[in-house]
Structure formats: C-alpha cells, structure tokens
C-alpha cells in the first residue's frame, strides 16, 4: 500500500532523472522526456481550487482502501495546500459540513467549532459539533497520512519539520521513497540533517542495491550507526543475502556490521537498564523516605504510611481541581502548590494519628502494627466515600510530558527524570532538617536516648508528634510525585507499602543514607532481573535475596551503633 504513494511520486522530473536505483532508471527515460517538456514549477499549486475541493470531498468515504488512494493522489503532486489538510485529518480535525457538504478543518474551542476553508486557509464560519461530521481515520490511514506528510515535508523550509520527515522515512524504509530522498539530499544544506538523509538512503540502498560494490558501500555506511532500525535492516539483509546466495564477502561484511551494531546496542541496553533502575529507585526512595523517619527513626511499624502517600496524591487532585478555572491547562503551578499543600495535609493527618492512636502504643510493636493497619483501612474507605472508588485524573504539566529519545533506542521520559531530581531534592531537604535545625537535633536526641533527652528538657511527646508529622508529610510529598506516574485511587498506598518497608529494612533502620542506597540498589537489581526473569519472578528473587541478606546482617546495610538501638 505504501509503494503506491511513491510510484506516483516518481512522476517528479528531478527525482527520476537523478535516481540511481534501477526501477526508477527504467521509468526514467520515458518520464524525463515527458516531464522535462512540461517542467512544472516545483511544489506549485498542482490542483485548481475546484479540483482540490473535489478531491478532498472524496476523503469522506467508508472504505479505508479508497481513502488511502485519495491521500496518495493528493500528496502526489506536492501542492503546498495539501499538507495542512492531511495534517488536520491525522489530528482528527477534518470534517464535512452538513450544510453545504464542504470539507473543512474545524478546531474546537469550548463547545464552538471554528471552520477553516481548505482551499483559502481562511476562517469560514463556526458551528456546534452537531453540524459537522468527522472524517474518520484508523491506524492504517494514520500510517498512510504520516508517510504522505513525510514526503511533502521533506522540502519544508522548517528544518525541524524536515528532520521529522527524514526520521519517518527511515522508519518506513520503503525503497519507493528513494528517488524523492535523493532529490532532498541534493538540496539539503544542513550538515547533520544531510548525514541523517544519507543514512536513510543507505538503509534503502542496501535492499535496492544491485552490485557487490553498491551493497558493500551501503553496509559500510550502516556499520558505524547504532540504532535498532539499522539492526533490523542489517539482520533482514543478512537473512535474504544467505537465502539468495550473494557474494560471500557481502554476507561476511553484513554479518560483521550486524554484530558490531548489536554489540553497541547491548551496551546502550545496559545504560537503559541502569537508568530505569535509578528511576525505579527514586520512586522507591520517595515512597520509603517518610517511612525511614516514622519506622526508621521512631520505630513505629506504620502500616498507614501508604495512605499518607495516597492523601498526598488526592491533595494534588483537589488542588488541581480547585485551581483549574484560574490556570491554563498544562501549567506547572498547580503541582508546585500541591507540594506544600500535600505536606501540610498529610503531616496534619499524621500528627492526629500519632496523638490519638500511636502515642498510647509506644513499645508495643504488634499492637502498633494492628492499630495502624486499621487506620489505613479506615483512611482508604474514607477516601472511597468522599471521592468514589474510581480513579481520579491528575493531568501532567507540559514539562513532564514526553521524553528525550536517543536514536539508539534509549528513551528518557521527562516525568521520570523530574521524579529522580525531585527525590534527590527531598532527601537533601530532610538531611538538612535533621542536621542543621534545632528540631532535627531534638529529634536525633530523642531517637538516640529518650530518657536523657527528656532529662535535658526536650518535650519528647511533642517531638514524637512532630517527627511523625514530618514523616507523614514527606509521604504526602511523595504522593504528589506518584500521582504523575500512578493511579490516583484509594488503593494507591497499598501498592507501595511493602516496597517501602523492604527499602527501609534493607538500608538499615534509622539511617537515611541506608534508605537512599537501599532504594537505588533494589531498583537497579530489579530492573536488571526484570528482562531476564519477568516482572513477577524478579520481585520474588529480590524478596528472597533480601531475606537471605537480613539473615546475614539483621540490621540492614548500615546499622546504628552504640546505645542508640534500645527498645
């Protein structure tokens, strides 16, 4: 189906006359004569207004096959007015207006659709959704539209548009695109883009190449690249070369190239695993760092810790809903306001729990465990009663959507990057509070020796409440971050409670740095195991390894020394 588009495109005179590949050459003789005689102005309006309107109306058809044919026809002659129409269709903004059966591009604002005439590109009225019927697209059409747009955009004055077009062509790897690509190569002035274009050319030339020299040249270009596409091109070529019995040197060269590409890709794979491990580690760290304070420092087995995270996430949701009328969508402000709000709300809930339940149970771990577990169920059900059992939507701000994509297949998503950064900031903040503030000093004193701290005049009960509040508040902050990658549902906390305990126990109870190291090492180990063993087994292995480790070192990675760990 893709071939169809480009067989039509070969009508372009320039492409055919310079085309190096065989198929084009065969047609070339005839086509050059015909086309050079007429010398159509490059990229001019190939359709008359009436023709454009008529052909666009044919897009409104029930058969996808017919629509693809129309798209091919529209893109074939390089009319500059076609690209916006196809783009609108790809975005689902192309409609048929019921009043006059005209095809229009319509953009929605509130409940009103503004119509734009496809021929003139000017505003042509507005209406509600009832007077428009959408021209439907499916995935097959989206593919055809993107390919068509790529060829149209190859000559765009905007370098970013051209770059995207080249990448699309590289993905599609249709030999029929080659003539047009060669034409673009001759015109391209940007060095980097030119290199990408030549690479794209090589991927196609490899399959289309006729002689040993052509093939070897193409392999040489490809061998130095490190992308999954090149690996696919080479492995397909190796398979077909062996099947069809090409020259041994070609097969050899291709195999060498393939293995060197694969070697480099596997290095990148490892880099990716490490990154994903760090990212998982940062999530674990955020979830666990509050617990490191309530459980690690105070020794309270706090089963309601997960619910503090959940409360933080729901605070984010409430703040976003409350600010929605005042802020544009995608604004980062609601998230920025959510951080202190979540800290305060979750912290306050934490203080209330400590004052009402936990302070009566110090020194009785089993009862604390059961009581906090009960609190966690109560909080879950409370949230369920207030907000309902269904997920709530927290929209991501613009700066947290999308990803940095490397051509090597490595993808660093922005939300994960920000969460890594955020976890570092949060931990640094806590470390600062513990180390440099009077409250931190009192807290450490109470942890290390409660009686002595009391004797020197520290109000231990007050410090307990605030410490528990701090731990809960930090869990609330974690909830803000987790609302970006996870469900905002009453069950949010349950997902993280076990992992959090694992991190704290592994890292060493009562030690912040142990928690940091514990979180990152568990994250990385998990991510290295996952591709090999699968997600379920990886979790089990990590758990078993942790149990064995605790047997060997019952106090975790970093144990507090001295008299600190009295019951």
């Amino acid at each position: 189906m893709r071939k169809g588009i480009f067989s039509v495109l070969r009508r372009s005179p320039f492409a055919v006359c310079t085309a190096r590949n065989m198929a084009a050459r065969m047609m070339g003789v005839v086509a050059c004569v015909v086309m050079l005689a007429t010398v159509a102005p490059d990229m001019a309006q190939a359709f008359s207004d009436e023709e454009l309107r008529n052909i666009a109306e044919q897009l409104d058809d029930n058969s996808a096959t017919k629509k693809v044919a129309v798209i091919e026809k529209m893109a074939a002659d390089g009319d500059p007015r076609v690209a916006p129409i196809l783009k609108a269709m790809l975005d689902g903004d192309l409609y048929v207006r019921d009043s006059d059966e005209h095809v229009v591009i319509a953009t929605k604002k509130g409940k009103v659709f503004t119509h734009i005439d496809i021929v003139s590109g000017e505003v042509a009225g507005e209406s509600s959704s009832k007077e428009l019927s959408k021209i439907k697209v499916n995935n097959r059409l989206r593919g055809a539209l993107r390919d068509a747009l790529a060829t149209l955009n190859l000559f765009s004055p905007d370098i970013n548009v051209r770059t995207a077009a080249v990448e699309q062509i590289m993905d599609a790897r249709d030999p029929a695109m080659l003539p047009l690509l060669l034409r673009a190569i001759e015109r391209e002035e940007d060095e980097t883009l030119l290199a990408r274009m030549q690479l794209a050319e090589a991927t196609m030339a490899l399959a289309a190449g006729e002689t040993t020299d052509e093939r070897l040249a193409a392999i040489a270009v490809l061998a130095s690249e490190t992308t999954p596409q090149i690996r696919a091109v080479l492995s397909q070529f190796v398979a077909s070369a062996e099947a069809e019995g090409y020259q041994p040197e070609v097969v050899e060269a291709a195999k060498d190239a393939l293995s060197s590409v694969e070697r480099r890709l596997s290095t990148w794979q490892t880099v990716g695993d490490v990154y994903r491990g760090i990212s998982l580690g940062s999530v674990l760290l955020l979830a666990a760092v509050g617990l490191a304070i309530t459980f690690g420092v105070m020794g309270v087995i706090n089963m309601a810790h997960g619910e503090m995270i959940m409360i933080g996430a729901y605070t984010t949701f409430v703040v976003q809903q409350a600010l929605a009328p005042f802020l544009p969508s995608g604004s980062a402000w609601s998230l920025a306001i959510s951080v202190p709000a979540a800290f305060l709300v979750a912290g306050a809930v934490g203080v209330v729990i400590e004052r009402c339940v936990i302070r009566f149970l110090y020194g009785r771990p089993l009862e604390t465990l059961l009581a906090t577990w009960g609190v966690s169920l109560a909080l879950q059900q409370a949230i369920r009663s207030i907000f309902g059992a269904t997920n709530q939507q927290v929209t991501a701000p613009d700066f947290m959507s999308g990803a940095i994509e490397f051509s090597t297949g490595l993808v660093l998503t922005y939300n994960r990057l920000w969460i890594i950064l955020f976890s570092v900031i949060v931990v640094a903040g806590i470390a600062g509070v513990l180390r440099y503030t009077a409250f931190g000093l009192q807290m450490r004193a109470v942890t290390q020796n409660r009686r002595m701290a009391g004797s020197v005049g520290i109000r231990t009960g007050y410090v307990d409440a605030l410490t528990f509040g701090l731990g809960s508040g930090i869990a609330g902050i974690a909830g803000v971050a987790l609302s970006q990658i996870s469900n905002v549902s009453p069950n949010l906390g349950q997902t993280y409670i076990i992992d959090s305990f694992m991190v704290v126990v592994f890292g060493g109870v009562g030690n912040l740095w142990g928690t940091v190291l514990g979180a990152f090492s568990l994250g990385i180990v998990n991510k290295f195991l996952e591709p090999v063993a699968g997600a379920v087994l990886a979790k089990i292995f990590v758990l078993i390894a942790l149990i064995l480790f605790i047997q060997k070192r019952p106090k975790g990675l970093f144990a507090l020394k001295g008299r600190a760990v009295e019951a």
Partner: protein
Amino acid sequence: MNKKLQALVGAGALALSTMAMSAAQAADTIKVGVLHSLSGTMAISETTLKDTVLMLVDDLNKNGGLLGKQVEAVVVDPASDWPLFAEKARELIEKDQVSVVFGCWTSVSRKSVLPVFEELNSMLFYPVQYEGEESSRNVFYTGAAPNQQAIPAVDYLMSEDGGGAERIVLLGTDYVYPRTTNKILRSYLNGKGIADADIMENYTPFGHSDWQSIVADVKAFASAGKKTAVVSTINGDANVPFYKELANQGIKAEDIPVVAFSVGEEELAGIDTAPLVGHLAAWNYFQSVESDANSAFIKKWHAFIGDEKRVTNDPMEATYIGFNMWKQAVEQAGTTDVDAVRQAMYGQEVANLTGGTAVMNTNHHLSKPVLIGEVQDDGQFDIVWETEGTVVGDAWSDFLPESAKLTADWTYPWVCGNCEKPMY
C-alpha cells in the same frame, strides 16, 4: 423399602415446608442479591455494577415491580477478598433467601462462589468478559467469551485495516484470565502462521506500576522490521501507569497499536487520552454507540448517579441484559423458582443497547455483536470495526485441543456443561 419411603415422604414434607416458608417470605418482596466488592482493589470497577443493579431494580419497581411484587436488592460487600465471596454468597442465598444474585468481577471470585451456587442450586448472573472454559448450570455468563472478544480483536489487528500485524506481544496480569486467554490466542496465532518467535508473552503482578522496562522491551521487539501489535489483558489498576508510560515513551497507535480487553471508558477516566488516540479496545458495548436505547440508558444512569461525567461501560450493559433477561424469564415462568426460571432463560431475547438483540443460548452464554473501538481524545471510543450480526458465545474454545472436543448444553439430550457425549 419402607424406611426409604418414609425418608422420601419426610424429605418431601421438609421441601414443602421450606417452599411454604420461602413463599411466605416472598409474599411481600422479591429479593435480588448484589455480590460486588465495594472496598478493596476491585471496588474501582465493581462499585459501578452495584449501582447499575440498584438503578435497574429502582426502575423495575417504578414500573410496577415483578409478578405484582416489589423487588428488593440485598447488597453485600465481599471486599475484594475471594474466600469472602463464597461466604457472602452463602449468606445471600441461605439467610436472605434471594431469588437470584448479580455479582463477581474477577474469575477467581467466580470460581470461589461456584461451588456454593451449585450446592444450594441458586442462580448467578456474571457480567464480565472472561476466559471461557466453564459452563455451570447455576451461572449465566452475560460478558464476552474469548471468541466474542479476543479472537475478533486479533483478526482485526492482522487485517489490512488493522495494520496487518505480523508480530504480536501478549501482555497480561499474572492470573487465570490473561493466562488462559493468551494460551488460546497463541494457539490461534500459530494456526494463522505466526511462529512462536514472533510472539512475545509477558506477565506482571496485579497493580504493577513500573512499566519502563516492559514498554522498552516492546519497542525493541517491534524494531525488527515486521509490523507489531500488542494484545493487552492487563487488568485493573496497572493500566493507568501502563498507558502513561506508553504515551511518554512516544509509542503511537499507528506504529504499535495496543488492543485491550479489560480497558473501557471507566478505566480511561483516570488518564489524559490525547496521546493514546488510536489505541484499541474490543468489547460488545461502547458508550459512544449511537442508538435510542443507549442514549436513554446513559440518561437514566446520569440521573440515578447524579453525575453527568460518569461513563457507562460494557459490564454495565452485560448487567443490564442479564437483569432484563432474568425479569422476562421470571415473568414467563410466573415464579422465581430457580429451576423454572432457568428453563425459561433459554432463548430469552433482550435488545442490546448497541442495536440488535442478545439471545441466551443453552450453553448459558449470550449471542452478542463484537465491536472494536479506537480511543479518542475525550476518553470515549470510536467504533472502527464491528461484526455483521451476532457471535455465539463459546464456552469451550475451539483453539485448545483439550477443550475443543467439549460441549456445553444444558438442554436435553446433553444436560451437561463439559461433556464429550450427551448425557441421555
């Protein structure tokens, strides 16, 4: 001989007295049990179905009730705890004396209550799409069997309009439904000429939240040059982080389409769907279907729940069909007696919300149309493909050798849910 006769008479008398008792109870109202989790992990999905049954009961009572009596819904909360489902089912049947139960979502909860319903000879309507390989005399399955959802979806992916997929990734949550469905799919795909090397299967725990590696693996698997598609049987809470990761890693539907069997309007409610446009779901119902019955149903739902933003979904329609079929069967039988109602159920017809009629077959599964919808940026689905007419739900898959030879038919001469030969 004499003793046997005595025992028989005794049993008869006992049966008569219990019947009299239940008749006395039933004199005021007809009781309907609702067995859906209102707390725990599954509350997110099941609460909606509880509300749906309450709405239907409410509606029925407003229109004069059933057999001249009011219908009363008895709601219990099995709290997403599978053994508790069995206890609560027993409580509903023995203590509350309900005539019928609407309930369960996960297959494991259904398996847990099955022995109770069979022992006490009661009736369960199960409204969720499931893995098949089951037909109980006491259960009516109003959700889709694999041949009414999974098989058509894969056919669509491999068709020209679906993108002509040649490599398939099977992603699922690690429990009985995804594993069985994927076993059926693998065998079906092998039959269609897709080799095992072109199928990637991956399972994750319930509530899995870190999808980075798996999405990266899918991307790598898809970069081999053949058109790749993902079939997702990921269930429950894990879906939101999965789709967020897909969107963030820039996987577009036209490159690697994902077709899901457990993601409907309700699950999408927690996600910004703009980056997911074009990903697919296969169901027997979508809220976006334009029909008079559907818009009336949506209107009624919004009025009942008091929130214009709440969506409707496929298991709700399955509940609606099941409830109305039961109502019709009771009216036809003139009683709520389980055996009489069961006989009246076969061949019972109810208009689908999407148009056409659903018919109850003697294998306790429905004939329904199959629809494939594309995610739109407003969180709704746009139907891109549908079956011509209805598909008969198949209790035992034809694509697994051990189940292909089994038949489920609860009428004479078969009278059996898993037999190779008729009983009579």
